[in-house]
Each structure stands twice: as C-alpha cells, then as structure tokens.
C-alpha cells in the first residue's frame, strides 16, 4: 500500500491542539499517532509537549559524556606532559601539581561539555538534514503545521479532521 504525507496549517496553537487531540482519540487504520505525527511551530511552545505527550530528550547524556571526557582528557594530557620530567625540570616541586592542573581540567570539562552537547543536539534533532518536501515557509512566520504520514487509505479520514478544524491550507504528496 502506498504512503501519503499531509501537512495542515493552523493559525494558532489551540486549533493545532484540538487536531492532535482528535487524532489521538480517533482510531484510523494505517496511521499511528505516536509515530506518524510531527508538529511544526514558529516558536518553542511548552504546551506542544503537553499535548504530544512526553518524549525523551537525550542531549543530557551527551553533556555528561562530553564534560567527563573533556575533563579527563585535559587532566591526563597535562599530567602526561608534566610527567615527561626530562623535558620539564621541576626542581623538587611535585611532578603533577593538582591545584594548578585543576584549573585547566575545569576549563576542559566545560569545553568538552559544550562541544559534545551541541553535537548531541545535532544528532538528536536530526540536523543537518534536508527539509521535507512538505514544508511551508509560513511555519517559520506565524502558522503551526501538523505533518502526518499515513497509508493511502487513511488520507481521507485525516484530511476530514484537518478540514473540520478549519485548516488554513492542506498540502499533500505521495510518500516513500
């Protein structure tokens, strides 16, 4: 069975929320609301998370890994260089002095945390990526888009729901 993608545009979050609620409460064959629904909005809107349900964010794990890796890498690189005491004469002072090394370790901890968090963001958010063909520039201005992917058989039912909630525009294309 063929796939179909639909994008409906709404002028405010209340309408978009009503659509999502109805999609959740209606059993439509060939459409899984948890998997096939994407909401696009011009602003970060906490209520979207509310009506879409909690979805996990994993960026924090990248942050943890990055900062630990950065800190450890910093400390061992510096200590490794200092331990090469043939090159660096210490004159009786500790070969690996902890207090000054802590400062550099701290900076590397932050550097690793920031870099890997952003890497994590790109991975988790699917960036960089190609824009989907069903994209409306109005979404970056003032409209809320609801993108659904479904079997051909479900398209009419979905369209009916969009129309019922007074979609400003509905775009449609054959999916892969």
């Amino acid at each position, binding site marked *: 069975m063929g796939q179909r993608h639909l994008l409906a545009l709404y002028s405010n979050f209340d309408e978009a929320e009503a659509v999502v609620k109805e999609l959740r409460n209606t059993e439509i064959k060939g459409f899984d609301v948890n998997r096939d629904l994407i909401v696009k909005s011009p602003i*970060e809107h906490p209520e979207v998370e509310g009506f879409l349900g909690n979805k996990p964010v994993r960026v924090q794990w990248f942050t943890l890994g990055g900062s630990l890796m950065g800190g450890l890498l910093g400390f061992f690189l510096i200590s490794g260089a200092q331990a090469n005491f043939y090159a660096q004469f210490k004159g009786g002072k500790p070969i690996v002095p902890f207090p000054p090394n802590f400062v550099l370790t701290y900076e590397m901890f932050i550097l690793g945390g920031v870099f890997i968090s952003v890497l994590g963001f790109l991975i988790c958010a699917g960036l960089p990526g190609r824009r989907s063909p069903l*994209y409306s520039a109005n979404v970056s201005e003032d409209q809320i888009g609801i993108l659904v992917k479904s079997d051909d058989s479900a398209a009419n039912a979905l369209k009916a729901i969009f129309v019922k909630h007074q979609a400003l525009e509905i775009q449609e294309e054959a999916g892969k």
Partner: protein
Amino acid sequence: MKDIREDIAWAKINQDVLKSLENPRKLYWVILFVALAMLGVAVGCEVYQYNVGMGVANMDNPHMWGLYIATFIFWIGMSHSGTLLSAILHLMHADWRKPIYRFAEAMTTFSLMTAGLFVAVHLGRVWQIYYALPYPNERGAWPNFQSPLLWDAMAIFTYLSSSIIFLYVGMIPDLAICRDRIHEGWRKKLYTLLSLGWEGTDRQWRNFRVTYLTVACFLIPLAVSVHSIVASDFGMSQQPGWHITSFPPYFVAGALYSGCAAIITLFIILRYVFKFEEYMTLPILKKIVRLTFAIAMVWTYLNAVEFASVWYSHDQASKDVLIQKASGTYAPFWWAMIFCGSIVPLALAFKRFQTNIPVLFAVSLLLNLGMWLERWMIVAPTFSHGIYPWTWDHDQWPSFVQWGMVFGSFGWFTLLFMVFCKVFPSVSMYEVKEMVYHRSKETKKQEETGKFAAAGKGAH
C-alpha cells in the same frame, strides 16, 4: 509601561527584523566607515611595530605590559555582558532580555576576538606565538602549566569557542526564517547552509531547548572563571598593588559593569540605526540601566574593600603604590577612574535619567572610559612603583603606537559588530514572538480573573 507591545503580529516581527538586514539608516554606513578608518590606524601601528620592534611602543623594563594588557583586560571584561544577559537572565526567566540578548552575545564574541589580538600584539614576535602551545618539541621549551597566563589562554579559548557556539545555536531558528523569507543571492545560500535544514519540528524544539539551557549553564561558571583567571595573572604575583585576595570578584564585577555599560551604548545605537524602537523599548532600557547601577555599586564597594585592605595591611610596598596612584603621575587618571566609575553612575539612580537617551548615551560612554582607566590603573602604577627601588619613579607614557592600537581596537570591534548586525538578525525573532505570545496570554488570563473578581465570582 509594558516592555513590549503584546499585539505585534508575528509576521510583522519577521518583517521588521529582516528589514534591518537591508535598509539601515545612513548613520550605519558612517559608523562603518569611521570604524574602518580607526582600524586602519591600528594596522599602520602594528605594521610599524612589527618592522621596527617593541621599542616603538615605548616598552622597557619594568614596563612590559602597558596599554596592551590593560586594553586586553578591558575587552575581556566587556565580553561578560553577553553571558549575563543570555545565560544568567535566561536561567532566571527574565524574558525582557529576549529582544536584546542576541546583540549582547555578538558583543561577547567580538570583544573576545578583539582581546585575543592584544595578546599577539603584546608578544611582539607574533610569528612565534606557537611557542605557547604545549607539544613535545626539539627546543625543549614547554609552557608552564602552573602559570595563570597559560590558564588564561585556555580559558579564553574555551570562552570564545563556547560563546560562538552559543550565539550560533541560539540563532538557528532565526536563520531558518531568513532562509524562508529571503529569496535570492548569496544571503539565501548562506542562510540555507547555516540553518542546517531547521523546520521547527517538535523534536527539534525539544532538543534545542535542553541544549540551549545546558550551554547557558556551562557559560555562567565559565565566564566567572575567565575573569577570575585574568585576575590571577595579577593576584598570583607578588607585586604590590596586585597581590590582593579580592581581585577575582573585583575583576568579575568590573567585567559585568563595563559589559552592561556597553550594552546601553549599543542598545541606543542599534535602536536608532536599525529602527528597532518597537523592540528595544525604553522600559527594557530602564531595566538594563538599573542592573548597571546595581553592578556599579558592587564595583564601588569592592574598590573600597581593596583600598581599605591595602591601607590597613602592614604591607608598606602595597600602601606606597596606593599613595602613588592617588598622588603620583597617574593621579589624574586614577581620580578620573573613581569619578567615572563611582560618581557618574549615581545619575542612573534618578528616574528621569533612566530613559533619557542622550544622557544615558553620555553616561554609558563615561562608565566605559572609567572601566578602561581602571584596567590601566591596575597595570601601570605597579610597574612604576614595585618592590625594588630601581623601579621607583620609573613612569612610562605609552607611545603613539600603543595609543593607536587601543584606538584601532575600538574600530575593529565596531566593524565586526556592525557587519554582524547587517548580515544576521540582531533581534531574536522567535524569542520576541515567544515573549509577545506568553505576555498576551498572561494579560488575557489577568483580564479574565479581573472580570470574575468584578462580578463577585471567585472572591469567596
């Protein structure tokens, strides 16, 4: 009076901000031209110093730092405002920062770039700057990991790269708006490339929010550490006038202070040049002014703490430096610093000045003059009245080369900043939309509650 009109249409926000990328007032080009000319002066001075040697800067023993390091600290300090507005106020949910944080972040980045140049200029032999890198080499020369100067290099690199990342990540949704609204030319290609295919999906926003918050959390301790480390360049030495416990908080307060003053200056300029009167409003300016006043008082207090602890200590050398500052060759500059840094900001306490643009513009420039003098007064007097008698009365007046570099650094900063504001949106469109959306929702709620209360419902 409200920070921003709550009935501005989202489409209009896009339109107004995108217009700033195309049609600034003529003053923009005047500023750009003047900045370029100022930069030209610095380039000329650097070429001269490069060819002839550091002697032309009037550097000698013990005056090895001069205006270069003083101005380096000034620019590092300036960079703290972006972190304050973006990260600290973001964590505190102060949404009035939203129309102005973008240019403050840009200011952070370009201040750090300007500061970095002074390190190279100060070295003299810039082609050997790689000596500072820690890698095994046949010369057997290693950087001293226990020196605050090396910590400084690492801290500034971390701060600069994190600030650029913070600025860029926060700008991705706006770059997508630019991509969608600008239809042709190199700009379209640039925005398409930099927006990374952003579509504003719930998945993207969810991860964006967490990432932005995370990086903000990292930036706050980082900013504090950067200026504390810069303070350690002085505080960890045994020089009189520098070996002071309160130096790190004093430096951090000074950094926030000069940063806030610079935000006021740039706020006023951008507001006029890019016709942002509707977004950079007077109530927001008033909030920055009050913040600046509070920080000015903290700085004044820390100054007093420094003077008192030196005065009542039994360290005669430090006491002598303080007396020299107040009555020696540098006295006019030292007193000018006190006047500009502690007396002038008192004007900000008066309500009628808090939204008076000409007064605020003049005051903000004076505050920054005071903060620049502060850095000079930290560096120079200690060199001319150190512990050893041979340094005494060894005053140094910077040569025109040093003054030229300082003058030109303002041109370099302004040039970068103004080009940025013309190429990238200097007001965050999506955050202003959020601000308008949430505030209008709040107002509606309040109105409804008011109606119920007026009708006697919900009162019991």
